[in-house]
């Protein structure tokens, strides 16, 4: 079923919208959740929360790319769950590693600086638009999908060390870009 047909089902408040979403994007959403929470029960919880969020938000929104829309929702749910379960101590999964890598860019300052998230997202989009396709895919797979380096290397037909050094260079360029845009890092 095409994305717009599934969205039509949401807009029609048809319960089959959830079923069709699960058929088409169930495994995709599960992969993202598993990358972040690294637990099958938690990932199922994230998936259910995502379908509920989609059901609640859909009449107001009409996403062109339903997969990307669901990916962003489940990522937020998974990150929230991750932070809740790992509030006392840092985890050892891919999320903790990815967060550590992003700390190289953003530092450890408190969130009291009141960062404008939508503006930061805009800057990230501009930064991504300046990368070539492989660089962009590697960056998004690592920091959006929270993929392990081995998976990225396999999908891009590169060695793991090559992906690691590519991401290191990209983080350096990202930090330089953000500082140029006026962020204090």
């Amino acid at each position, binding site marked *: 079923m095409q994305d717009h047909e599934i969205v039509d089902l949401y807009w029609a408040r048809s319960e089959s919208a959830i079923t069709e979403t699960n058929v088409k994007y169930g*495994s*995709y959403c599960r*992969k993202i959740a598993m990358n972040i929470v690294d637990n099958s029960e938690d990932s199922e919880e994230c998936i259910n929360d995502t379908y509920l969020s989609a059901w609640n938000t859909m009449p107001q929104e009409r*996403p*062109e*790319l339903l*997969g*990307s*829309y669901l*990916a*962003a929702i489940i*990522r*937020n749910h998974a*990150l929230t769950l991750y*932070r809740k379960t790992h509030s006392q101590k840092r985890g050892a999964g891919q999320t903790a590693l*990815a*967060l*550590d890598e*992003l*700390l190289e*860019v*953003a*530092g*450890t*300052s*408190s*969130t009291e*600086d009141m*960062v404008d*998230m*939508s503006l*930061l*997202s805009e800057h*990230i*989009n501009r930064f*991504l638009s300046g990368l070539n*396709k*492989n660089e*962009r*895919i590697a960056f*998004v*797979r690592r*920091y*959006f*999908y929270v993929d392990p380096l081995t998976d990225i290397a396999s*999908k*891009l*037909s*590169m060695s793991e060390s090559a992906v690691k050094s590519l991401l290191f260079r990209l983080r350096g360029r990202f930090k330089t870009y953000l500082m140029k845009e006026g*962020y*204090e*890092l």
Partner: protein
Amino acid sequence: MNGNDLMNALSGIDPKYIDEAAFELHESPAPKKTSKIVRINRFALIAIPAAAALLLTVSVVLTRMHVGKSESTSAGTAMTDAAYPAPEAASEAAYDADSEAAFDAASEADYDMASEAAGEDMMDMAPGLEAPEASKGDNAAAAEASTSDATGSSAASAASETSGSDSTLSADFEEAELNDSERSYESKKGLTSPILEEAEYEDGILTVTVKEALPPSAKELKYSITAADGSGSDTPLAEGTLGDILLAPDPLTLDLTDLDLPAGTYTLTLGTSTISFTCK
């Protein structure tokens, strides 16, 4: 700003970038390993036929070299023969090496020119042999003999037939080599096959007219008498040395009374010469 802020902000990236990187929904973006395999396959497609062609070429060249070597060896053997010196060897080598030239000449519908070209090539191909002047005549004769099968038919087509088929040529050469070896053996013993012109049989006595008088050593010549039964195959009746049946050398008179030949047609073979006679 900290890492969590960046992580949260990343959820707001453009959906097209999320979709672009969605391996789960699309094909892998960089199938480099596949292209390597394709490159290897293409290489194999080119390399294997090329290697086969090279192997074929090398085998053909080696075969030709081997054939040329064996022919030159036989030519060298013939050169050492007192009775058949350089011209025969030269004719073999020249005929083989320049058979194409002879063919080209022959295909121009000039039989004489083809024979002449072959004769010239014979001498050209054996410059170190220094054949005697008289042997030039033998060369020409050999060239003529090699194409004499064509007598009676169109000169051009006969020359083409003679020169155009390698198998025919090689068969002719083998036959010529055999005859040469026989003649060589007989020459060493002082035996020369007489040229038989006419034969008459009467009451068990066969009288044969020969071109030249037989030498005393002719008694050692081998003879055979065969009967032609009409089916195309000859039936051997007797064989031995000429001395066994020789009554008189001039005219050559042979005693065949022991055979008690019935009426029919027979063939006398003396050395390499043959003649037919009829018994009434």
